[in-house]
């Protein structure tokens, strides 16, 4: 069929030529959208089953039923009232919120210098940033733990995770630099000619133009902190008052043994904010993902 379609068009009348392509296009449309619906089911059904189970009664959650007989909305109330749950929320918001602000403030000037200043060692610095970005946190965790726990006596809190964010985050620096590279130098030169210092140029000219990049970095950092499990496990596990949602969620399963309904309700409550944030900031997010290093 393709060959027929693609054969060099001899000077013929139009109608006989038109029919096969249209039919082919229709078939392709059907095939593509069937696959699309199948894929959509694969991506959404897990959410659906989780939500359905979260609304089952304790007894029904122990069966193989897929749909709740009676919709137990109070499961969410029970989860919400679990001792500690609100504290985990507060801690997560502190870690994610404060951490994100600190990261953006400390990473932007670094990214600006790496993108727009000319100095010896710049390429080396960028390579070091990339190396730090790719470094698994577990590589340096032993000395870092000893540093925070033994020298500064800060274990049992989230501060060992928040304070480092005031000193630039490699991934954010890299992403912001990639974004700043796309801003033409002429804008900066114009500001400099007008007598702006570099800090002024950064705040007055670059900052407004870099807003989408900053939004993407802020989102990534917020999600990173929200999702972080290893960090709270190392520094906060000894003190339940410092747990975050991601860390506490796991222990929730432990406290409720086989109560899949309550565990799934808690799971929904941890997923929901992330998904809500995404819907409000979808564009910035998708832009950010494409920025993460792909230079086509």
């Amino acid at each position: 069929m393709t060959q027929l379609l693609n054969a060099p068009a001899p000077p013929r009348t139009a109608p006989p030529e038109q029919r096969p392509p249209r039919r082919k296009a229709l078939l392709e449309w059907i095939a593509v959208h069937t696959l699309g619906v199948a894929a959509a089911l694969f991506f959404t059904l897990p959410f659906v089953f989780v939500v359905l189970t979260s609304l089952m009664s304790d007894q029904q959650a122990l069966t193989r039923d897929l749909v709740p007989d009676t919709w137990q909305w109070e499961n969410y109330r029970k989860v919400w009232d679990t001792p500690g749950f609100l504290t985990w929320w507060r801690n997560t918001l502190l870690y994610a919120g404060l951490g994100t602000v600190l990261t953006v403030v400390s990473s932007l000037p670094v990214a600006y210098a790496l993108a727009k200043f000319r100095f010896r060692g710049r390429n080396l610095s960028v390579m070091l940033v990339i190396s730090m970005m790719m470094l698994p946190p577990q590589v340096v965790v032993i000395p870092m733990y000893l540093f925070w726990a033994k020298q500064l006596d800060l274990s049992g809190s989230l501060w060992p995770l928040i304070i480092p964010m005031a000193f630039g985050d490699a991934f954010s620096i890299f992403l912001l630099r990639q974004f700043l590279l796309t801003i033409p130098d002429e804008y900066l030169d114009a500001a400099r000619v007008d007598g702006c210092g570099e800090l002024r140029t950064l705040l007055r000219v670059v900052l407004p133009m870099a807003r989408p990049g900053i939004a993407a970095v802020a989102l990534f950092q917020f999600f990173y902190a929200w999702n972080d499990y290893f960090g709270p496990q190392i520094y906060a596990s000894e003190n339940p008052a410092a747990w975050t949602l991601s860390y506490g969620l796991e222990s929730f399963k432990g406290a409720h043994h086989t109560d899949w309904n309550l565990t799934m309700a808690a799971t929904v409550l941890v997923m929901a904010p992330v998904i809500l944030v995404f819907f409000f900031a979808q564009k910035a997010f998708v832009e950010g993902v494409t920025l993460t290093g792909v230079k086509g």
Partner: protein
Amino acid sequence: MPTHTPTLRARHRASALRTLAFLSPWLIGFGVFFAYPLVSTVYFSLMKYDGFGVPEFQGLDNWTYVFQDYPMFWPALRNTLWLVLVMVTCRVVFGLGIGLLITKIRTATGAFRTLFYLPYLAPPVAATLAFVFLLNPGTGPVNSVLEGMGLPAPGWFTDATWSKPALTALALWGVGDLMVIFMAALLDVPKEQYEAASLDGARAWQRFRFVTLPNISPIVLFAVVTGVIQTMQYYTQPLVAGKVASGIIGGSGQQFEPGYPDKSTLTLPQLVYNLGFQRFDYGAACVVALVLFALSMAFTALLMRRRGGLITAGDR
């Protein structure tokens, strides 16, 4: 000339200071949170230290212990190899497939894209809990459906043979990041090349093979290498899956030996946790940390050495 030199030098100094000032947050961070702990990790890898008293020098004992006597090291490395070969490959192929699909979908494209992307955002602990539930052999909906269709229903996270495939399913569910990257790359392929290929009579597969693939191959390589690096760091999902599926949970994490079932979900980062924070053998933990460091950096170097398409450190 000599009259100009001082001002020039002063200006150079001012510009160097300015650069230093802008870089200072990161320079401090680099020293305190990267360089110092890295050197310190090398130091501790040669010491016997449990967090109390004074570290004791013991040469390469930690190294021989990890490579010869520590029962979790080789299983973890084998699992990592499995995950690199199977999970990374599946993710790249599936991500490319979904990316292709989304570029072809003409109706409600935005809705499809959002649906495909959302699972990537699910917090890993939550997503893992969800999958342990979905795939649990007792009451899980997946096995209910499989049995309903007369298909075998494996034990997934409770069966050493099936735990890594179950983790792969979880990783495929969160393929949204690759989808977006591939989608952007696919839309960048020049339309004229497809038209030229069509005029030459190329079929769909040939167009994909000779037009699409060559154009997006840097992105495929990027996806593979970053996938490998992510696999080196693979921690939360296998650990939480093992913990939850085994039924052993607790805030302290002391009683759970990672890797359930039968070491099949062990990965290198979990060993650092196990040795350092469960066995308090900081020396041996640092040995594993250095192995992890070497592997990660080797693949990062691969990412940076490629000219052109991949991450470039130099100018545009």
